[in-house]
């Protein structure tokens, strides 16, 4: 998985993250502006850009907690599909 693409996609949905600020792997996505409605948009965006579909049971708060947690779930999903 291309980390740069992943970060680019995630950043689009973080309205509280200035462009020049780093996105740390353990940063709270919620604090950076990702609410549950936005998570759906992010999900679709990830599917389009990375071609990875997440199962419905991965649509949890834990999945969308941090860039690292999200990346792990995406890797798991990619391994399955």
């Amino acid at each position, binding site marked *: 998985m291309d980390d740069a693409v992943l970060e680019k996609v995630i950043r689009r949905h973080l309205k509280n993250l200035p462009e020049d600020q780093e996105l740390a792997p353990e940063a709270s996505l919620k604090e950076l502006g990702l609410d549950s409605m936005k998570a759906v948009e992010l999900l*679709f965006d990830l*599917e*389009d850009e990375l*071609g990875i*579909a997440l199962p419905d049971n991965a649509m949890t708060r834990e999945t969308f907690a941090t860039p690292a947690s999200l990346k792990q779930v995406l890797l798991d999903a990619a391994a399955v599909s």
Partner: protein
Amino acid sequence: MTATMTTAADLSGRLDTVLPVLREQADAVDTAAAFPERSVAALRESGLMGLLVPTGYGGLGGDLRALVSVAGALAGECMSTAMIWAMHCQQVVALVQHGSPQLRERLLPRIAAGEVYVASVTSERGKGGHLFTAEAPLRRRGGRVLLERDAPIVTGGHHADGFLITMRDSESAGYNSVTLVYADRAELTVTPGDGSWNPMGMRGTHSGPVKLTGEVDESSIVGEPGAFRTVAVSGFVPVGHVAWAGCWIGGAQAALRSVLELVRSPAGRKQFDLDSELLRARLARARLDLDTMAALLAQVIRDIDQGGDPEDVPVQLRLNGLKVHTAERSLAVIDLLIEIVGLRFGYMRGTAMPLERLFRDLRSASLNYANDRLLQANGTLALLDRAVTLTY
């Protein structure tokens, strides 16, 4: 109701053997308006024909929740097969609750083994579908009961192995003195009645007319003579409404699933604008209808499980209301889903998503034991409950 002896895993294992057959057969059955023989054969094999037969007789001892979950799963593949099965289960409940010991002994193990599919004969020329009246009288002769019955609509009438038949108790009895009688196909001469079966939907139920003549042992009378109302109110009607609701909700649920699958797929997202407020509002409505139908169904199951007076006014209002509401709203859900996916996916025959067939199938739901009649009853009952007693 019997305590459940079936686990969810057991049911899902049995369904795994049945659902692919229904999926494969549904379209052909609909096109030909033919009875789903292979699907029913798979149900016989699976043990699910005996879902409500107590384990002591070799059945699965399932409860109402098991009934609903199986009905819903079947309906998601073929509404006709699901309704055939649901009505069979309704007959089984009457036999379990009110069959004589001799009848239960000789019949329930055969039902559990999948040998006997039981059809319901309640319609009659002249009186239509009214459940609590009958014209054709029973005649008794030395411990034997003779019957001769002409029924305009019998689901699966040409394929059933047994029949539960409503009859006027005797030639001198009033039309509302109704007796329920079980007859094996072997005890009857079954001839096709006048008329054919070429309906808009539910085409696989093959609910054509039949004429039945024959004689059975007196032990085949189910419940007290003339007291079909008691049999009906205590199980036959509640279980029927619950099972029908389970089928209709299951059909609408499967339809919403398939639409979500479509619009969420990578190809679908190019075609459907998921940011559309209209689309989201429509999805929300469809989901809300399913949640309210399921909630009412859950309350009716609680009402039945609590074993209170089935003629309690609020309980009756909910039971009738469940049939009316799920008939209306399941069709409304399909209608809305067709609006969402449009002509190509929603209106054409032979697509992967059978919305067109479900629409035709569910159009019959309000007519099948007519909503109009139940609303008349509920209007009267509403007047009797000035306090407007609600349960939640």
